[in-house]
């Protein structure tokens, strides 16, 4: 069985290639896949004829207890025959239905075969979850097939509607399955059926949810609407999905579960009422249609209602009759759809008011149509008659249901005649329709189906034997599928239905006004439209309330929640009742006072530079606090970062307006301040609560010990960064690389990987003087922009700074420093070079791309981490390598040094990217603007530099 599924998969994947090569004719070889399924089912007939089953199980997802459990029983045997047989015929038909070169044929062929495979999986699945997976696969494939004409809006809408309705049902069904499986302890239906059912409301809920899925898939009320709309699909799709296969999945599920669940809770009333009402309304609606395909669609709805009621009711006789009817329906309805396709293909219309005289111009097609329609109407000796009589016979003990069934049967007869009359009859005043030459592959499939329907009628005894094992699941079967059961009440009712139908059709003239007025209670579009429109409106309303588009509003809301929820919780703990020391060292309050004052002043500052410097002051103050707290590494890093930040900020400030724009709204300013005060108080409270909340011992008590034993370093913070919490640091490096790339992307208009700036006019005089001078800012910078003092200082300390940064890097494992601090010092050195010498100087100072440094750094960090794998450790675990060198003697190397080198490079890369973007590239823009006489200034509206 698995082989068959794989065959479908392979065929589906190969289909687009084949179609590209051979055009629609590629459907012939593709038909082999479903044909193989058909052939396999035929071969396996003896195995299921006596009620046995063919079982295959393959492990799939053991964690979920989900196996590929496949099981062929009578029911799935019948479905496999239909899916395989009709699938192959429809594919053969498609080979000529689609014109060579038509758009989308490749997709159609692939999806159609995949659909057949999913359908096969659905009926073979024994595991309910596997069944659900296949169920949703058919939904998705049907979406693609219904939406075949992607350029048509109606087609897209129809596809989306089918998807929405059936997926909704499918999800409900999944919940029902899970409820059943959870209770029974297994999802294997063959095992679940043996276990005791849950009771009460639990069972009722599960049954209702499963019915929701089954009935929506089979387009039973109230989910009918998607099926007629789905007629936007190409006719082969309708023939397969909407007659033979997909809509039958719901009926199949009813049949599969009915032996166990039919007596449970609401199952029987729901299935009977929904099914019978659907049957009547669908039949009534079919009488009104002028489009032959729609007529068939409503006929299908009607028949699906009948099948749901008969299969779902769960008595032995009805089960036998129900699946007889399912078989008959699949054959005649698929044949009729294919006939409509032939007419549409040849005549260019399916409107029965425009067709005329086909019975004479296409006699063979007319014969096929007649056979199939007679089977639909239930005339002897066709299989439709056998099924209909058996259905009536199965319900003789329920007079009310029987009456509805007979009425439905009369409607069926009426629309069958209407279809024949509409498709074939000669209409006065309408020119005779000419189909041209009809290709054999388009006539043969419907003809074959019609003939099988003819043969199966007299041979109903065989069918009876084969389907009996299924019906016996419900108990002793009294009924028979037979062409002649004697003069029974059922035979009389069949005759009554035929007569009633004929009368209905004959009275179509007088009935026309009633037909026009009595529409189905809910039209195909209105219900679905109404609901989706409500949803759209609700979505817009909710979005417009929650998403006003204002950043301060969003942030304000988030912050208010922060103040309200954790702040509210604080009110309960009352952290302010803690007894706290005022300060630990006398210097602390002084520094903190400076920080606080600077922060408050920064809020009120009008000039950007002032605000920045005040904020920088809080940063330096924070560094001081770190020193007092006993955190030299932090203090060092904070000092360096603050300095680099100020430098970078000033680079951007060159371009931004000097002052912040004034906002006239006083109220919003006070609101902002109120939020600020509230959130500030909340965070202060949280800080008190957090600092005094410790009850357990901190894990970091182990860190000094771990640092020496496993990290081979004495600086605990550094070892924490490169070893104990190295994954954290690795994530941080990635963030830095992303930020650097983002900065460059935002500022560079073209690629940043292009040639780096070179000096425009190499200054030859100085080199000729025989004394190379570095830092030649004078050659490229305007006299006004030069700072001799800065140049001299830079000349003096650049090399020292770079050396110092290397020292910090290498000593960081045992003393304050490390990759971050070292990288920041090197960045500062580069910043000075740039400030003193301009952008060409920067390019000379670092003649490598920033991207190269970033990538190299990340690679070294990761590679260094992976190095410990060689030493037999985990990734990023430190290893100690003992070495010897002359003059130095024994020394050792810790692999985490490579990680720190990576950190060092990434930090430099980030700084370099920032300098190149916000420094050099902005310089270039300024120069370009100056050269083009404010060309840039013209670009920006109302810009003020």
């Amino acid at each position, binding site marked *: 069985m698995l082989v068959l599924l794989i065959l479908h998969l392979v065929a589906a994947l190969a289909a687009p290639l084949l179609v590209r090569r051979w055009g629609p004719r590629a459907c012939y070889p593709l038909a082999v896949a479903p044909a193989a399924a058909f052939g396999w089912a035929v071969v396996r007939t003896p195995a299921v004829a006596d009620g046995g089953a063919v079982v295959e199980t393959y492990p799939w997802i053991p964690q979920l207890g989900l196996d590929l459990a496949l099981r062929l029983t009578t029911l799935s045997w019948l479905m496999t025959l239909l899916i395989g047989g009709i699938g192959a015929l429809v594919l053969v038909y498609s080979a000529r239905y689609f014109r060579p070169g038509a758009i989308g044929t490749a997709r159609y062929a692939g999806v159609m075969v995949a659909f057949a495979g999913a359908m096969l999986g659905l009926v073979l699945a024994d595991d309910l979850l596997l069944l659900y997976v296949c169920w949703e696969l058919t939904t998705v494939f049907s979406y693609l097939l219904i939406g075949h004409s992607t350029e048509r809006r109606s087609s897209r809408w129809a596809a989306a509607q089918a998807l929405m309705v059936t997926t909704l049902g499918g999800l409900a069904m999944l919940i029902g399955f899970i409820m059943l499986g959870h209770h029974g302890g297994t999802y294997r239906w063959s095992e679940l059926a043996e276990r005791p059912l849950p009771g009460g409301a639990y069972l009722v809920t599960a049954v209702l949810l499963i019915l929701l899925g089954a009935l929506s898939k089979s387009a039973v009320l109230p989910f009918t609407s998607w099926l007629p709309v789905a007629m936007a699909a190409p006719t082969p799709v309708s023939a397969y999905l909407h007659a033979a296969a997909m809509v039958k999945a719901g009926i199949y599920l009813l049949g599969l579960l009915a032996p166990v669940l039919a007596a449970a809770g609401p199952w029987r009333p729901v299935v009977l009422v929904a099914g019978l009402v659907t049957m009547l309304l669908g039949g009534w609606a079919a009488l009104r249609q002028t489009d032959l395909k729609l007529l068939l669609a409503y006929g299908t709805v009607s028949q699906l209602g009948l099948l749901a009621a008969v299969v779902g009711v769960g008595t032995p006789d009805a089960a036998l009759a129900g699946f007889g009817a399912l078989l008959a329906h699949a054959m005649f309805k698929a044949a009729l759809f294919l006939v409509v396709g032939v007419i549409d293909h040849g005549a260019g219309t399916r409107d029965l008011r425009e067709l005329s005289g086909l019975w004479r111009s296409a006699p063979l097609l007319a014969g096929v149509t007649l056979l199939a329609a007679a089977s639909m109407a239930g005339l002897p000796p066709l299989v439709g008659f056998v099924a209909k009589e058996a259905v009536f016979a199965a319900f003789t003990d329920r007079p009310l249901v029987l009456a509805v069934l007979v009425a439905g049967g009369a409607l069926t007869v009426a629309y069958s005649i209407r279809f024949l009359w509409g498709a074939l009859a000669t209409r006065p005043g309408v020119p005779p329709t000419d189909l041209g030459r009809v290709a054999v592959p388009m006539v043969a499939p419907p003809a074959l189906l019609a003939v099988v329907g003819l043969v199966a009628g007299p041979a109903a005894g065989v069918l009876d034997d084969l389907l009996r094992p299924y019906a016996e699941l419900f108990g002793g079967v009294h009924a028979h599928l037979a062409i002649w059961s004697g003069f029974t009440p059922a035979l009389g009712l069949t005759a009554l239905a035929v007569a009633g139908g004929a009368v209905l059709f004959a009275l179509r003239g007088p009935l026309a006004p009633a037909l026009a007025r009595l529409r189905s209670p809910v039209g195909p579009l209105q219900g679905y439209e109404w609901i989706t429109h409500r949803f759209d409106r609700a979505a817009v309303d909710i979005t417009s309330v929650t998403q006003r588009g204002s950043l301060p509003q969003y942030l304000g809301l988030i912050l208010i929640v922060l103040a309200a929820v954790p702040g509210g919780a604080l009110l309960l703990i009352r952290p302010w009742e803690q007894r706290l020391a005022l300060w630990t060292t006398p210097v602390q309050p002084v520094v903190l006072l400076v920080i606080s004052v600077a922060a408050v002043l920064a809020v009120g500052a009008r000039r950007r530079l002032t605000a920045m410097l005040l904020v920088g002051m809080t940063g330096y103050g924070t560094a001081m606090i770190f020193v007092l707290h006993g955190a030299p590494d932090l203090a060092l890093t904070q000092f360096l*970062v603050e300095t680099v930040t100020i430098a970078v900020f000033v680079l951007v400030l060159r371009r931004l307006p000097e002052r912040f724009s004034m906002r006239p709204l006083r109220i919003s300013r006070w609101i902002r301040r109120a939020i600020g005060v509230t959130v500030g108080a909340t965070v202060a409270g949280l800080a008190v609560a957090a600092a005094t909340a410790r009850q357990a011992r901190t894990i970091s008590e182990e860190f000094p010990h771990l640092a020496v034993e496993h990290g081979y370093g004495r600086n605990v913070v550094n070892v924490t960064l490169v070893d104990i919490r190295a994954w954290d640091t690795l994530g941080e490096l990635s963030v830095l690389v992303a930020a650097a790339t983002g900065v460059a992307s935002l500022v560079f208009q073209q690629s940043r990987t292009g040639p780096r700036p070179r000096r425009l006019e190499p200054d030859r005089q100085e080199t000729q003087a025989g004394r190379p001078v570095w830092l030649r800012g004078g050659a490229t910078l305007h006299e006004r922009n030069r700072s001799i003092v800065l140049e001299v200082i830079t000349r003096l300390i650049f090399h020292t700074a770079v050396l110092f940064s290397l020292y910090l890097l290498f000593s960081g494992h045992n003393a304050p420093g490390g990759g971050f601090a070292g990288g920041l010092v090197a960045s500062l050195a580069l910043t000075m070079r740039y400030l003193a010498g301009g952008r060409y100087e920067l390019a000379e100072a670092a003649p490598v791309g920033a991207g190269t440094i970033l990538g190299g750094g990340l690679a070294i960090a990761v590679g260094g981490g992976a190095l410990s794998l060689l030493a037999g450790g985990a990734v990023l675990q430190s290893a100690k390598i003992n070495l010897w060198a002359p003059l130095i003697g024994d020394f050792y190397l810790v692999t985490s040094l490579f990680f720190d080198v990576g950190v060092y490079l990434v930090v430099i890369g980030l700084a370099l990217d920032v300098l190149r973007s916000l420094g050099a590239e902005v310089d270039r823009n300024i120069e370009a603007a100056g050269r083009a006489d404010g060309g840039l200034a013209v670009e920006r509206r109302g810009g003020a530099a």
Partner: protein
Amino acid sequence: MSTGANLVSFVAIGVLVGCGVTLLLERSLSRVLLGIILIGNGVNLLIIFGGRAGGAPIIGVTEPAAMSDALPQAMVLTAIVITFGFTAFLLAISYRSWYLTGDDEVPDDVEDRQIVRRAAAKQVSTADLGGEGADEDPEQVFPPLDHRSRRDEGPG
């Protein structure tokens, strides 16, 4: 065991975060950025005061028992450098914004304002544009209902 926690530091944390929040709610990106830096400083102090104070956590310099807590320090060190990357990124956005609009103010989101207008006009936002009109479809099975075709007359 001294946690290093004391009243003055908590007040300072509150002031830093409060000022930061006030700036964060401004429209000017520079102010937003400064606000984020202030909040960052405040939160870094919060984290660091979560561990005890003491001597530098370097073996050989301080006895392990007298060391300050190394774990929050490592976290804050990461945070400081990340803040720097973030600052650079926001500055680049500020510059970009200035380059495009002449200022670094954050305007309201245009799409969102459009949705607000649609809600006021009782329209829906999903417009299935493209394709042909209802009448031009030869295989049209159900002509779309009235309000749907009205909906499709969206911009475009």
